[in-house]
């Protein structure tokens, strides 16, 4: 008896939960309203069956529970009833399947006028490629992938020269236009998911897969990787900004073509030397850093990383948080660098400076730190050397006190919280793992053991 009541209560509770739940699909922002319709349809059919069958079961339990002198009926089968039930079930199944297949037929059939954009996934970042003026994407191959050519574009393919490369986790798309997203992975499986668009698809290394949709609502939407891709899976995020055509065009104009990136001259260290004079005041003439002035060591750091940080400071993506005292001091300094060329030059100069390991100042239990570093090593390299293709700066031999401050900043949301600081936000999620200051000290103590 209690179990029959429990069944009834669970059925009622489930229905109520469904009706009252604040957790449901986020509002749609693409043309795939039909997918939502098939879901509603499935809800109606299955919901009806759920309620009806379970209530009937509860009824049977109450009505036919054992009582004194009661005896069960003997009915091996009832063909008619069974065929009726089979038929009804089949009808319900068809009612759900048929509309589903119709929508799927649209899913497979990409509109001819769909614009093409390629999303490239690699552990644990997104980047994008737009076909340039010729409307064609160049051929690619994993063999070509390197620090200079992270997209792996075939340098000999003329179609690839004008491809526009967006080396950032954020992509913009024009509203209202169907877009076919080609999906390519450089290393492992990933999955391109924007909840508001409803559609998703895996990226498979060795293949190019696709999805298509037409954004119907402007805004900024989270892009998540939803196929397990290793330790950093949960930080492999990006965003899709849907905006008006003109804004989109302007945004796309900021990004270089493949030809431009490959032709870009390396920074001129000689030209960078005078620019560095300003920096030297704090960071030291050899860029060895100065703890007293809270200026970290720069020599030995990847120039690509220095450039990115200088640009972040210049754009206000870093050094603008109220509590980032020393970042706020750096921001105006970065502003003195006139343009990207100046940034390239000064970074090139820093690269020429000798890399002597900074003295250790942090004490902690390196042994404990080693266990924690397993996670860090996935991006920064097991030896802390830093891996450009993972967008992970070097840690080995850098100012350890600075690592501690930055880890704390990341953890407290002082760094990496700015919407434009894409890679910083990833680090913020990772720094959150470090439970307390001791954990940070242990970790940095372990980093200090790298030779």
């Amino acid at each position, binding site marked *: 008896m209690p*179990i029959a009541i429990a069944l009834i209560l*669970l059925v009622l509770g*489930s229905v109520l*939960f469904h009706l009252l739940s604040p*957790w449901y699909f986020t509002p749609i922002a693409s043309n795939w309203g039909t*997918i939502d319709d*098939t879901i509603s349809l499935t809800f109606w059919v*299955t919901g009806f069956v759920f309620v009806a069958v379970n209530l009937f*079961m509860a009824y*049977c*339990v109450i009505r*036919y*529970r*054992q009582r004194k002198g009661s*005896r*069960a009926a*003997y*009915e091996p*089968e*009832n063909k008619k009833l*069974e065929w009726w039930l089979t038929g009804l*079930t*089949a009808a319900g*199944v068809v009612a*759900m*399947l048929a509309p*589903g*297949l119709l929508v799927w037929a649209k*899913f*497979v059939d990409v509109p001819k006028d769909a614009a093409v954009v390629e999303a490239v996934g690699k552990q644990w970042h997104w980047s994008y490629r737009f076909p340039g003026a010729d409307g064609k994407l160049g051929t690619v191959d994993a063999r070509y*992938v390197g620090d200079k050519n992270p997209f*792996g574009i075939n340098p000999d393919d003329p179609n690839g020269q004008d491809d526009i490369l967006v080396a950032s986790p954020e992509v913009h798309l024009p509203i209202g236009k169907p877009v076919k997203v080609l999906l390519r992975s*450089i*290393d*492992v*499986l990933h999955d391109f998911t924007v909840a508001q668009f*409803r559609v998703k*698809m*895996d990226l498979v*290394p*060795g293949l190019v897969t696709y999805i298509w949709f037409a954004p119907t609502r402007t805004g900024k*939407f*989270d892009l*998540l990787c*939803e*196929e397990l*891709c*290793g*330790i*950093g*899976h*949960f930080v492999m995020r990006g965003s899709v900004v849907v905006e008006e055509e003109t804004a989109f065009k302007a945004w796309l104009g900021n990004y270089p073509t493949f030809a431009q990136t490959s032709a870009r001259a390396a920074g001129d260290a000689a030209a960078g030397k005078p620019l560095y004079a300003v920096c030297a005041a704090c960071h030291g003439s050899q860029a060895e850093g100065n703890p007293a002035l809270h200026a970290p060591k720069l020599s030995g750091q990847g120039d690509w990383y220095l450039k990115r940080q200088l640009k972040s400071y210049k754009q206000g993506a870093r050094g603008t948080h109220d509590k980032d005292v020393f970042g706020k001091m750096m921001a105006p300094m970065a502003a003195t660098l006139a343009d990207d060329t100046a940034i390239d030059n000064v970074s090139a100069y820093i690269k020429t400076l000798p890399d002597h390991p900074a003295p250790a100042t942090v004490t902690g239990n390196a042994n404990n730190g080693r266990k924690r570093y397993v996670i860090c090593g*996935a991006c920064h390299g097991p030896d802390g050397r830093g*891996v*450009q*293709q*993972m967008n992970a700066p070097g840690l080995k031999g850098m100012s350890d006190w600075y690592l501690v401050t930055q880890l704390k900043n990341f953890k407290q949301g002082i760094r990496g919280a700015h919407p434009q600081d894409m890679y910083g936000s990833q680090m913020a*999620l990772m720094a*959150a793992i470090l*439970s307390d200051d001791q954990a940070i000290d242990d970790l940095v103590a372990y980093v200090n053991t790298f030779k």
Partner: protein
Amino acid sequence: MDYVAHDASAYAPPAEVEEMELYHPKTFVGKYIWSQDAKIIAVQYAVTAIGIGLVALVLSWLMRLQLAFPNSFSFIDPSNYLQFVTQHGMIMVIYLLTALFLGGFGNYLIPLMVGARDMVFPYVNMVSYWVYLSAVLLLIASFFVPGGPTGAGWTLYPPQAILQGTPGATWGIILMLVSLALFIVGFTMGGLNYVVTVLQARTRGMTLMRMPLTIWGIFTATILALLAFPALLVSAIMMLLDATLGTSFFMPAIVSMGQQGGHAGGSPVLFQHLFWFFGHPEVYIVALPAFGIVSDLISVHARKNIFGYRMMVWAIVAIGGLSFVVWAHHMYVSGMNPYFGFFFATTTLIIAVPTAIKVYNWILTLWHGNIRLTVPMMFAIGFIFTFINGGLTGLFLGNVTVDVPLSDTMFVVAHFHMVMAIAPILVVFGAIYHWYPKITGRMLNDSLGKIHFWVTFVGSYAIYYPMHYLGFAGVPRRYYAIEGTNFIPESAQSLNVAITVAALIVGAFQVVFLYNLLWSYFRGKPSGGNPWNATTLEWQTPDTPPKHGNFGATLPVVYRWAYDYSVPGAEQDFIPQNVPPGEVTRSSART
């Protein structure tokens, strides 16, 4: 119609059946350790499976703790989180459920229910267990190697399974694959036994259609497993070669961590096809024995024949057959040719029909029944409820269009836990409460059983029903932490906390069950040979627990199907399968 007796002239004395040669051990070790008695082997399987299952239960707690209280536990980082997820899944699906249903229940029930002395090849049966045990030990060993066990997800998808950047990509994955290969070898030995025993060792009169549905379920599941596990074996071997010798079956040319990989030309999707060609039948390898067992529980405790026995058999066979042509519904968004979606959505939804029929027939068995709300019956009803819920959400995921937004979210996690974790586990519990008296000669404690039932049933519903809604809201699965998105409401976190609390409670209450098992073994009420008044042969043994050889001097002869409950005209409300037509006591009230 007169159901009680067919003409007694049809009664034939037992034919001269070749008696089986049993191995008679003399020592304790021979009897209980290197045992060739299927009943002992069954207990060995069950204890091992439940033991390793408890490890997986603890792993699930750790996972849930992280999801509810992110970054609060220093011993859970993204790396070992993935290891917990992976090992939890792998252990539960393969090492617990498959081993428990087939190795445990299969071994115990097949010989007893079909009226055989033992499995046909007792020696092979023994080896099967020891190979299984070594597979389990290898799996445990992987927790202690450098880098720990693999964290590639229970599906072990390449390329990431064997690349740096995934936990346990060096030693862990290799031990995992070798352990799986061993498991498959061990299972094949056992499986051959189960199939041949069902086909060749049934006692006189036990035709196929007189077999209890438990045997049908286990038998069909065994055939599925025999045909499906080779796919896993092949993929495990191929991945091992990719990982160790540098072949490129599944590994395309890639750049990992900024380094060019040494592979070229492999296909990750090929692995997925092979894996799911095994993986989907695997769902039914777990589900079919549960279907069979629950049918018998319901029939016995409702004192009524199972409704539509033939339909139930056909449905089991149909589901088994169909399960081989639906595998790619796990791969709708895997990047395979999207046109496959039409085919696999259709086959998948077709499988809903025989499955629904089974549900209807269970409930129609209750209808006009004489339901005894015993603990096994409560678990059976709990199973039906849970299974209906899990089956219906399967209609979401099987229908390719509906699957797309839900795939890779917590909805999937909730669905498959409902349908192939909680539902079969409820059956396992029901079955243990049901057959424990036969195994030990004592009843399990009823009050403890009821506490265990209520917490497990309601608690696990409280875990998984709300979890679907996290999936609707877009919470991805396999995520160590979901903070930092714009579209998932903050309140999702409070739901996560609630789910974790429920999971901790349900998990902890399993202690009640374990305690009951131990306590009742010594103190339980003596059960007698047939405490539930059931008809099937295992309850008709001369000794309880049955001795080696099961049936004493002569094998039973079967005169009726397994479901002669409440037969009109018979005095008692059950007629055991081995009661000859002439010996049925007629009720005096018969008109």
